[in-house]
Each structure stands twice: as C-alpha cells, then as structure tokens.
C-alpha cells in the first residue's frame, strides 16, 4: 500500500512538472508577432517597499513604450544565490534584457557573465557589479551628489546662508564602504559652510539602540550641538528618537537617508526637517527605458546622453546612466510620496 501511494504521488508530481515545463517552454518559443522586447528587472530583495516603488515606475515605462513585456521578480529573502538562478533561468528563456540590482556582485556576476555569453543584454541598476559583467549601470546618484545633498539639506534646515554650529555624523560601521564614500564628500561640501564644524563621526554598527545612545551622549557632551546626520537606515530613526525624547526637537536637527514612509512621523513632529533620497519610482522608470533603448539599438557605448520618456534627456558618464536627481522630503511634500 505504502509503495503504491508513493508511486502514485511520484506520478502526479511528474505530470505536474511536465505540464509546468511545457508551459514554460511554450512561453519561450512563442513567436512574438510585433517583436516585443522582454525586459527582466531583478531587485535585491522582492517585497521591500523601496523596490516595490521602483517596479511601479518600471511598469509605467513599459506601458508607455507599448512593446515591452516587463518581468519584475527577485528573491524574497535577498539571497544572491536565488537571484543568480533567476538570471540563469531568464537567460535560458532567451529574454532580451536583464537588469540586475546585485546583492552580491561576486555571486551574481557569474550568472550575468553567462547570460551575456548567450547574447543577452545585461545592465545593472541601483547597485553595480564588475564592469565586465554588464554594459551600463543605471545609477540613482553618485556618492558626491549624496554627500553634498545631505550637507546642503542640513545647512538649509539650520536656516541661513552661513549656518553655524556643531554637527556630528552617526554612520553604519567605520568600515562601511558606501558610507565612507559619502562622508568623504560630506566633508568636501562642509568646506562651503566654514561656520559648520563636524565634531565627531561615530559608528552605530547598524544598531538603532546604539545610534540612540550615541545621539544622547553627543547632545549632552556638546550642549551647543546643532545637527546630527544619521546616514544608515537605522541610525537615522535612532538619532531622531533620541532628539525627540530629550525634548530637543527643532533645536537639534536630524537629517539622513531613508524612505519617506519610515521617517514620516519625525518629519510631521518637526524633529526632522529633511529626508534625503532619490525618486525610486523614477529609478525603475529610467531602468526600463535604458533597457529598451539598449535592445533597440538607440543606446550605444560612448553616448553621453539619451532620452528617457517623461524624464527627458539623461546624462551618461562613461557607462553610468545617471538619474541625477536627489529628492529632499519635507513636511510640505512628504505626503505626496508613498514608499
């Protein structure tokens, strides 16, 4: 009896699998009458609000272009191995363009290289991999722009052309490459505001509680502290909460990088005046336009710009397609964004 059941289950499973395989195969060889372009958009982690909003913009672009079949898919746990196997599968299907936001450039780089060998166009977006593994990168912002935008936002929030006072940075870890790059350009920009002095750069080890404690200590040790930059995802709300609980809202300003939804409460109560990020909807939109232009031959290496629908002319520096528009969310505009 037991064996019979097992055989039966195996048979059923085999049938189901065969059906699925046929379905997939049919999908792959189905001739597209109007030569539709299949673009696959791979996020680091599916289900994150950040990437979900990117996919909304991507769908807008696909609808506008009309001849694009957009596939938005990625691992729900952010596993680079699963992401790589998705790239492999798409490569086997023979899609036109794969746009990857690699969570691990090493792991995904292999799959991307293989896909390119099969003649598939590969680009990166949101995060980059080794230049040999892709043709272009759709870059939301350079480290320079991010660093400058953060300092400019703080200067503006402090409310004069020559703002003065002490400011401090709470970063992720002292070895975080992204953050260190931003800090370098923040220091460069601070020279424009000679009366702003950076008194400390402290690591929070991606720990909200530690960021909270450091912000508390900074305020007590420097009672004349004017501003705190929280430049990692949990350092920002941690620092804001410390300022709020100390009753310093409006007296010590906090700014940093985060999605508007996560900081909305602090922006509403005045602890945070500006939240810095790029428009994630536009990032997805630009990526699909770039992929489309690459597949149709209107985008070639060496170009210095290309036209991307409603975004108009976008700059290309080397192999970097720049979104080049950092957003600052304030009390006045934060409700217009939902991501």
């Amino acid at each position, binding site marked *: 009896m037991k064996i019979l059941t097992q055989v039966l289950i195996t048979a059923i499973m085999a049938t189901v699998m065969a059906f699925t395989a046929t379905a997939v195969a049919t999908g792959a060889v189905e001739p597209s009458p109007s030569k539709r372009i299949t673009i696959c958009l791979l996020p680091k982690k599916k289900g994150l609000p950040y990437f979900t909003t990117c996919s909304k913009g991507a769908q807008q672009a696909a609808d506008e272009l009309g001849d694009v079949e957009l596939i938005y898919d990625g691992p729900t746990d952010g596993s680079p191995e699963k992401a790589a196997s998705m790239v492999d599968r798409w490569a086997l299907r023979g899609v036109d363009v794969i746009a990857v936001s690699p969570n691990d450039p090493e792991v995904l780089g292999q799959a991307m290289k293989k896909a390119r060998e099969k003649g598939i166009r590969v680009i990166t977006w949101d995060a980059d991999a080794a230049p040999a593994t892709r043709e272009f990168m759709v870059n939301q912002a350079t480290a320079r722009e991010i660093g400058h935008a953060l300092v400019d936002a703080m200067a503006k929030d402090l409310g004069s052309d020559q703002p003065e006072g002490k400011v401090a940075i709470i970063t992720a870890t002292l070895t975080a490459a992204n953050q260190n790059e931003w800090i370098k350009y923040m220091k460069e920009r601070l020279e424009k505001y000679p009366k702003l002095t950076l008194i400390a750069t402290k690591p929070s*080890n991606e720990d909200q509680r530690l960021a909270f404690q450091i912000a508390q200590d900074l305020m007590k040790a420097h009672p004349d502290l004017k501003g705190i930059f929280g430049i990692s995802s949990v350092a920002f709300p941690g620092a804001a909460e410390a300022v709020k609980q100390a009753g310093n809202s409006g007296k010590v300003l906090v700014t940093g990088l985060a999605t508007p*939804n996560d900081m909305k409460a602090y922006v509403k109560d005045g602890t945070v005046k500006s939240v810095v990020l790029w428009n994630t909807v536009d990032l997805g939109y630009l990526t699909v336009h770039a992929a489309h232009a690459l597949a149709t031959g209107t985008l070639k290496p060496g170009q210095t710009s290309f036209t991307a629908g409603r975004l108009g002319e976008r700059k290309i520096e080397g192999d970097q397609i720049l979104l080049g528009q950092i957003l600052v969310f304030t009390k006045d505009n934060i409700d217009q964004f939902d991501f």
Partner: protein
Amino acid sequence: MTTRLRTLATNRLLLLGGLLAIVFLGVSVAHPGYASAQNIRDLLVQCAPVVIIGCAMTLVILTGEIDVSVGSMMGLLAAGIGILSSPERLGLPAGVVVAAVVAGGILLGGVNGMLVVAGRVPSIIVTLGMMTVLRGVTEILMGGEWITDLPASVRYLGTGEPLGLPLSIWTAMAAVVATVVVARKTPLGLHIYATGGNSTAAAMARVHVGVVRVTVFAIAGLMTAVATLVSVPQQSVIESGIGVGFELLVITAVVVGGTSISGGYGGVAGTVLAALLLANIRPALLYLDLGDRATFWERAIQGAFILAAVLSDRCRWFRRADGKAVTITTGGSP
C-alpha cells in the same frame, strides 16, 4: 576556608566598584556634565536590559552552561511585540502583548534547556544553533519591512516613568532583588551552585540537575522577554536586526563580574557592577573627546576586560588544584 573564597569575591566587587568610581569621577572632573542627573539616568537606562538578562545569565553560567541565543531571542520577541501590537498588523491590546511575549520567552528558553538536557548537547552548540534559527525566523516574520507604528500603550513600556524613574530601571532593580533572593535563599539557588560546582556530586546528593538546567534556561528566556518589553519600545522602529550581538554584552558583564565561566562560583552583584562599568566605556570616550580614533578603542577595551576576567578565573582554578585554596562547600543537599 570559605573565608578565603569570600575575600576573593569581595575583592572582585571592590575592584569593580573602585574602577567604576575612578572612571566616573575621572570623566566628571574632565567634563562636569558627566555627573549630571540626566547622564546618570541615561547610563542606567542603557544598562537596564543588560542587567535584567545578566541576572539570568549569571544563573545559567553558575550552572556551568551558557546561552548565546539571548540576542536573537530578543530580536524575535521584539518582532513579536511589533506584529502583535501594531494597528496595521494584529493590533492586540498591550496586556495581551506582554503576556504573549513573556510566555514566548519562557517557552524559547525552556526549549533551549530541554535540548541541552534531553539531547545531551553542550549548551554552547544548542544556543548557537538557536541563535541562527531565531534570527532567521525573525527575518521571515518581518519580511524585510519595518514596523513604525507601535501604539502609545506599548511605547509607554520603553518610555514611561512611573514615580519619576523609567520603567526599565524599576524592572532592573526588581530583577536583581529577585535573582539575589533565588540564588541565596531558595533550594533552587543552592542547587544551581551545586550543579555548576560539580554536577556528578550534586546528582549523587539527589539534586535534579536536569530540572535545574531547564529551569535556568527558562529563566533566561523569561528575563530576555522582560528586558525586550522594557527596552525595545524605547525606540520607534522595530526591524529584524534588534539584539544582534547583545548576548556578548551580557556574557561579558557576567564574566567580568566574577562569575566563573566553568560554573559554581560567582554572583549577581558582580554582574551589575560590571554592566555599569562596561556601559561607561563608550560615553566616557565620547565625553573625553579623544577624536574619531577613540571609537576604535571601545571594543579593544571591552575585550581586555574579558581577557583579564577569564585569566583571573583560571588563576583561581590553579590555586584550587594546588590544594591550597578550597573545595566547593555548597555541594550538600539542603
């Protein structure tokens, strides 16, 4: 002979108390703001979860075991607080959330203990596995998103100040008193010391060493739940990384506090003093304004404390082996 042991214990407490006073007074002289009521309050709030879990960890280590899963447990229970209480998720009332989190903590700790006792697996292995499993479960539950809309009733647990003191400080004081009473005045306390001192001898003296072990792990789960409840809602965001590395902070406090890593010897008073001392390192470096490089020293100093504590623990063992010092005197049944 017990007097010798007692002197050693007193010495450790004196040493820690002295160091704490030197650090605190020293920094206060350099920067008067350090001795402000606000700073003392912040330091105590910061210590509270370390002390609460540290009480239970002292009992675990006294039994000769270790629990490295408390940080991940904190993360999972924090996710539980968020999912149960957030109006966008389950939106349950604060009372139900507290009961569920406490029950969850006891259950998780109990599972740790059962695996150690019934599975006959060393506790470092069991809890190391648990540490990874619980963090994984937390990530699945949180789905990569943050919970930012904790209701005011839950935020009160972390920010409320009944009778002028933060709830976490009250809780930490209660935890210390309860643990001292359990350790000193109850049969369980005696059995914990006996099991850690020499579990074979304890078993022969009809101590149920298995029951003792499961109990201390369950207490660790309970205390982790309590610490999570009074510390996590102090922050506005619940994310999947809460509690990462917290177990090291707690174990450091226990070991630096003079509890022998091989069990049977030590106590809660040392853990509390060590937690206070360790909590002073980072703010002291920040107040002294030694520049950005000073930040690198924090971990090095913490590590030095652990090494010094473990080495002094070893020295004590050598003395015992020499026969000059003492044999454990608490092994008898009550």
